[in-house]
């Protein structure tokens, strides 16, 4: 009876084991890279908003503090979105004829909120509170990037759990002096000795790494 497989098939069989291992490795690596890619995390994705609002213009150029609009960032879980009346504080006079601002005026006239597109959308099984991060000295820019230089806001970070944990394991590098929390362009290397003392004291007040990385800190 003739052999079904050629003698060389032995080598192919042996090689196929190695190839399978390599392929599994490549597939595993590809999976981790695709899962972290901006394609899946929406990182760097600029969204079309109903109004062409520029954070760079309002915060960077005009110097309006973050808290002028995001009033509850120090006191509540949500940073707070400004009501249309807040827009009209200035735009009742400035650019009051601009067609770009028609959605704002329509919102004010009809008493209907502007429907902004959410840029930073955490999954709802994750608990996040802005106020505690501000109180502990984490600046806006640590998560949101240099908003004051973003004409249209995009998601600076992946917002994945590994990214949250990286800071919860070692928060010290992201603690700022109180005066620089809302300065999104602050350079850490420009820290003054007095500020360094303040930051060092603040770091001592932080909870332990074990507590900060326990499940129920974020999943409650």
């Amino acid at each position, binding site marked *: 009876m003739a052999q079904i497989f050629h003698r060389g098939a032995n080598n192919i069989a042996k090689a196929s084991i190695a190839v399978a291992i390599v392929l599994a490795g490549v597939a595993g690596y590809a999976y981790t890279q695709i899962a972290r890619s901006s394609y899946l995390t929406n990182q760097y994705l600029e969204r079309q908003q109903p109004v062409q609002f520029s954070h760079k213009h309002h915060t960077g150029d*005009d*110097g*309006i*503090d973050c*808290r*002028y609009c995001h*009033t*509850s960032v120090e*006191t*509540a*879980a*949500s940073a*707070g*979105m400004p*009501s249309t*009346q*807040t827009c*009209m*504080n*200035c735009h*009742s*006079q*400035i650019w009051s004829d601009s067609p770009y601002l028609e959605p704002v005026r329509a919102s004010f006239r009809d*008493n*209907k*909120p502007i*429907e902004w597109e959410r840029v930073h959308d955490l*999954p*709802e*099984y994750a608990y996040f509170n802005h106020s505690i991060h501000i109180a502990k000295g984490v600046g806006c820019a640590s998560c949101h990037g240099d908003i004051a230089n973003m004409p249209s806001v995009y998601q600076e970070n992946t917002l994945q759990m590994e990214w949250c944990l990286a800071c919860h394991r070692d928060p010290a590098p992201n603690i700022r002096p109180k005066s620089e929390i809302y300065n999104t362009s602050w350079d850490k290397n420009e820290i003054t000795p007095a500020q360094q003392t303040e930051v060092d004291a603040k770091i001592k007040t932080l909870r332990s790494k074990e507590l900060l990385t326990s499940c129920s800190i974020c999943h409650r």
Partner: protein
Amino acid sequence: MLKSKLRLQVKSKKEKVKNKARFFGFAFFLFTFAFTTACRYDMQDQPRYKVYKKSDFFADGRASRDLPSGTVPRGQLREDKALYTGKKENADPNVQVATTTDASGNTLIASFPNAIEEFPLPVTKELVDRGEERYKVFCIVCHGPVGNGDGMIVRRGFTKPPTFNDDRLRNAPVGHFYDVITNGQGRMNSYASMIPVADRWAIVSYIRALQISQNPSSVTALPMTNNNTNTAPKPAASPTTTPATQGGAR
């Protein structure tokens, strides 16, 4: 013979019932399956309202609801009229105030019959510091760093507000500043939904500090008095006076 026939009939009847049950069972499965797929939610998008979420239920589309009118949150009856309105106990709402008009077209109030003269809470360094911080968030954009009305928004074209550093506002009672922050004045909108009560008084105290800084010789002439008798809540931590942050309702 008859018996066996009967038995057969019974058997086929049993079979029929079984088939019927099977059919209905399958139909029920399909029916429920159709509904489970229609109601599927992922854990990351749960069927509950979060702040600023859109609602399909309420006519205006907002999940964050306003308080029903007339309700008073526990502990927020606001009985202390001086603290919450900056006005005297016997204030007359129909009183005529003297007004003038400045070069920018602002209507300036020159008499303040209803406003309280004294701070309704202790003026401490913490209060003034808090006021400085809040002033630089909310007021500096128009009123400028020292209150001369030369803020960035004014440079962008907004009407120049009156300066804090003239005799009219130096002699104005503190209740007037509080009233303007709370209810707005002229082209300035109300800031009541953005600044809690205690922070408004902190800002007023900082405005007084600015007025002193721009006119040091008249320190004693300023109506900066404080009898320290009022036991008002401390300013920095006063979440009870921030309805704007509760559930995002405005």
